[in-house]
């Protein structure tokens, strides 16, 4: 396992098949600490399945999935993996709609997750300050007492990013964060993610090429469950195979 040293996320030879269809085929990816990685690729390339494998929703048939250089993720369930420090934002924004914006963050805040810890939890001044800080970052402070259901699509996306921040993860998996956002919101999101990536590792799955350009990170193009090309966005988008299979001529 020495190969996994000094990595935040280490996938080696991962394969998974659903009813004989290989959704992920011998996939190997490395994400280093405080590195941002953007993943692009056509529909059905296995991007979401890859996230499912990392977060414990799907078990790989073969291959190693290591977190922080030492923890084997294939043995753990979703809750254990989340508590290790892997946060996930879903493609479709999923916030808890019948809770207020504040309560959404309070639940996500990194605290003991046990039943009785939650039953007797009283927010400390520090917790309140942290939640307020996150609300300022995601610009939802003025709507903190509103039900999450009443937020706009873009605001829900931001609330979900806020929930990720509250979890204080070491690795963030962000699936299509700017879907349904205006151009200025998209720019703000790119800025926010770049800021986050200064202290944490971030993996972003996105279709929006201009957004990926704004991230300015290393890019991997997936297709048919394997890495098609890797490098800077310019290198990847100049790759003839990528043009053929994904970008189109």
């Amino acid at each position, binding site marked *: 396992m020495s190969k996994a040293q000094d990595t935040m996320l280490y996938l080696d030879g991962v394969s998974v098949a659903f009813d004989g269809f290989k959704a992920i085929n011998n996939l190997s990816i490395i994400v280093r600490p405080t590195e941002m990685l953007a993943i692009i690729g056509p529909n059905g390339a296995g991007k979401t399945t890859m996230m499912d494998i990392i*977060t414990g*929703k799907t078990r790989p048939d073969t291959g190693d999935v290591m977190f922080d250089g030492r923890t084997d993720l294939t043995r753990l*369930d*979703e*809750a254990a993996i*989340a*508590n290790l420090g892997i*946060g*996930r934002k*879903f493609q479709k924004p*999923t916030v*808890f*709609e*019948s*809770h207020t914006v504040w*309560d959404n963050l*309070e*639940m*996500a805040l990194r605290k003991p*997750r*046990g*039943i009785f810890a*939650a*039953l*007797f*939890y*009283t927010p400390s001044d520090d917790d309140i300050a942290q939640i307020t800080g996150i609300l300022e970052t995601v610009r939802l402070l*003025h*709507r903190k*007492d*509103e*039900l999450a*259901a*009443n937020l706009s699509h873009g605001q829900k996306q931001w609330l979900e990013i806020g*929930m990720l921040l509250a*979890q204080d993860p070491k690795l963030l998996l962000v699936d299509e964060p700017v879907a349904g956002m205006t151009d200025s919101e998209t720019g703000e999101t790119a800025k926010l993610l770049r800021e986050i990536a200064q202290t944490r590792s971030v993996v972003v799955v996105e279709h929006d090429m201009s957004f990926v350009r704004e991230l300015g990170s290393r890019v991997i193009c997936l297709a048919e469950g394997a890495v098609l090309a890797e490098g800077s966005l310019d290198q990847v988008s100049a790759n003839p195979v990528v043009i053929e299979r994904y970008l189109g001529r």
Partner: protein
Amino acid sequence: MLTQALLRALDKKAVWVIGIFLAVAILVPMANLLIPPGQFGHVPTYMVSLFGKYLSYAMLALALDLVWGYCGILSLGHGAFFALGGYAMGMYLMRQIGSRGVYGNPVLPDFMVFLNWKELPWYWLGFDNFWFAMAMVVVVPGLLAFVFGFFAFRSRVTGVYLSIMTQAMTFALLLAFFRNDMGFGGNNGLTDFKDILGAPVQAQTTRVALFAATAVALALSVLVCSMIVNSKLGKVMIAVRDAESRTRFIGYRVEYVKLFAFTVSAIMAGIAGALYVPQVGIINPGEFEPGNSIEVVIWAAVGGRGTLVGPIIGAIAVNLGKSWFTTAFPEFWLFALGALFIFVTLFLPKGIVGLWQQIFERRRKTPAPPSPSQSADVERGKDPASFSNPQPRPAE
């Protein structure tokens, strides 16, 4: 820590409900014992027992609301926990009969003598102690719920599959308790009770005391439920109800959250059953009838699930209706119940309490002229989801 949790539990609504039931626990017995019959304000004893029965039903509906309304677990087998608590109480009451039974056996209940049993089965030992029986009222339903829930929730059985399993559980228990070999009185169940804690069960004072105990138990249950749903755990329960897998991905163990709610709820149902049995004077396998558990779901739905108060109102209202209906048109009660359920599902998804909130909110909103700071509120008024949040929001 605990005091803070208690303070949080006592929101305005909970204080009212608890206050009302504590007042009922004092005033109704006074109206029965101190005001002589025939005079204005007297509550006849049969009425006290009838309402005592309704209050134990209300407690059962409240227990169901904790798992269904807040955690999204539609249990169609809650009557089983109620009946198990009832049987534990019934076993204590049977042992209290002593040699006053028809056959005069000092140890064996009549039905065992009748079946030619020579000695008490091991699982009847200890039930002559009140404290032991009361411990079993809590332990038996709680343990069954814990074991059942542990396997069901760990295997991620949800939705309609879980409902069917709970229904099968109560049906299996029904069949088991019908058997004479089980040693619980078979078809006839346990009845002909004499004393509870040395006081005759049929006496007016005992019946009034049982009523008061039920009202206090209901008030305490509201306190416990309110403490749970107002805590962060309560918020997590709602999160599990609305988006189970999302809750997992922020690191909560959904199966434990469900297991906690299910077990607490089963214990509450068991206590309700234990209070029910001495007031009606009998417990038999009919209490495990799958239809009974479904009726509990209807009470909760009619009153308004996910509100704590609603199911209490629903249980009392539907049972009042049932008492009247079964004397006026006995054949049509089940049709009326079915029609009521369909009506509530279609037109009152939040039950009586939801309707009341809706009327209240509309009345509060209409007189206020729309000002710029309120425009957001007015807009939101069109959204039915906003009715679920009765608190006024600060101006933006």
